[in-house]
């Protein structure tokens, strides 16, 4: 390992340390809760599908739960992992070694992204498993019922899960930027959720920009719409419900879009942290 120069190895070790802590803190219990919530939703909607395609309900529930718990994890995990280092002062001990501040931040970000990836992968497996079980149940009850229930493309479900991971990665990077500047974890948490709300409302910002009479409102809407990513672009559940696969153009575009924002927010977090007095 290069003791002096910038080292990807140190970033990996910091990320691995972060993941190990997350595992020991039993964050995997969150996965169990999510699986339980998904199973319960499947049962609920199975009993009361009311004539509408059950896969549609199950996909809404699955991706909605993934969205809900995933957003909490994407905000809380970076804040907790960052501020616990500050409060325990282990950040001083780490940075007293020949460790770049950039390595520290990027290691934290990398660990968070891997954690979210595991979370989304687990969620997709749960959703796909429940869909498969449901089709088996419907096929057993009545021949042709499985077809009536609607087509499910498992590749679209997997792609939908990957898109959710990209969205959560961007959210985690935004939160880490906020944490690298914030003085308290509470501020970082609240600001993180505020950023989530603003990113969800980006479509509204565009509408406000087009419809508002006031120059200042239009300007503010234009700035907000440009500065933060649009999380509406990641809402692919409706596409997945049709059974059609997500287009390669969309997947390539959204991946690049996400990578750019993760890179920029990560770089800005490095920049803020470099000038933070510890």
């Amino acid at each position: 390992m290069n003791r002096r120069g910038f080292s990807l190895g140190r970033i990996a070790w910091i990320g691995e340390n972060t993941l190990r802590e997350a595992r020991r803190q039993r964050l995997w219990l969150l996965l169990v809760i999510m699986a339980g919530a998904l199973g319960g939703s499947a049962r609920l909607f199975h009993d009361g599908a009311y004539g509408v395609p059950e896969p549609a309900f199950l996909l809404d529930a699955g991706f909605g739960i993934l969205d809900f718990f995933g957003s909490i994890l994407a905000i809380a995990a970076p804040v907790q992992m960052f501020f616990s280092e500050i409060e325990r002062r282990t950040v001083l001990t780490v940075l007293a070694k020949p460790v770049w501040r950039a390595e520290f931040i990027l290691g934290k970000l990398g660990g968070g992204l891997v954690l979210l990836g595991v979370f989304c992968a687990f969620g997709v497996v749960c959703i796909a498993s429940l869909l498969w079980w449901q089709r088996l149940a419907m096929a057993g009850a009545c021949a042709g019922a499985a077809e009536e229930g609607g087509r499910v493309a498992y590749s679209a479900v997997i792609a939908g899960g990957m898109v959710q991971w990209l969205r959560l990665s961007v959210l985690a990077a935004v939160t880490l930027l906020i944490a690298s500047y914030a003085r308290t974890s509470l501020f970082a948490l609240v600001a993180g959720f505020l950023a989530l709300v603003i990113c969800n409302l980006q479509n509204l910002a565009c509408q406000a920009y087009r419809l508002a009479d006031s120059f200042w409102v239009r300007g503010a809407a234009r700035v907000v719409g440009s500065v933060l990513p649009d999380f509406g672009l990641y809402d692919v559940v409706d596409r997945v419900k049709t059974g059609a696969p997500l287009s390669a153009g969309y997947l390539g575009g959204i991946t690049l879009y996400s990578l750019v924002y993760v890179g920029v927010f990560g770089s800005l977090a490095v920049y803020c942290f470099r000038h933070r007095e510890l």
Partner: protein
Amino acid sequence: MSACLAVWPSIAFGIVNSSAKLASVAGAALLAVGAVVQPLRELANSAIGAARPSTPRAEGAPPTGPGMSAAMLGGLRGLVADVLWLKTYLAWADRDRVATERLIRLVTMVDDRPVYFWLNGARMIAYDITEWRRAARPPGSDGVEDDRRLVEEQARAALSYLAEARERYPDNAAICVEMANLHLYKRGDLSTAAEWYRRAAGLPDAPGYAARIYGELLRRLGRKREAYAWLCQLHPDLPSDDPEAMADVVLGRIRGLEEALGVPEGDRYRPVSGRAEIRHGQR
């Protein structure tokens, strides 16, 4: 490359020692990135734009408060709408008119994408609530005129509801068919119903019977020549091996119109070979 990644902030921006400068740098960087990724945003939006939920608002007006609340839900909108739909069904089962009407509108405000919310909501308004109101009328107020007013009121309410659906789905055949059904069976307005069946028949996902019913309505409206021309151009496209397509029924109607219009034998419609010939009056 990794060394450049770590060093570029200080090279590019120097030492910054105030929050205002930090905010300026971050803001400028994000604005620049926002401009750079705009093509990617448009690419992704064009791929899934139709699949994004709308934000409820009046024409030309900013989004409403409830609309903003719904938009804030983000990816949870679908799940929340599904849960609200369950509540709607429970209210429907209890014959709670006020709750049913409120929840029907709330569901589509939260998430306007699923067509079955609109269709089933309209059916509840037009058919079920009409019956509830009939049952709830005081004794002595069940005259024919009162009943007709009641049916008309609910039908118009359902049509107004479906008109909102058409703002999101202007080319959805199921919505057009539902509107046609309401005009036909609830309002008795054959002319308007015929127009909606015609629109539905011209859409890609139209059910087979839309075109057939349009032809039949033209006949009932006395527009026999139009009906004859319509059915003659429809029949060749009907699959003979699909009972739901009712090709024999259509052919029977063609023959009936030929009789009524006095079409000469030599000018009569000749089905493609292999199709069964059904005389008028025979099924």
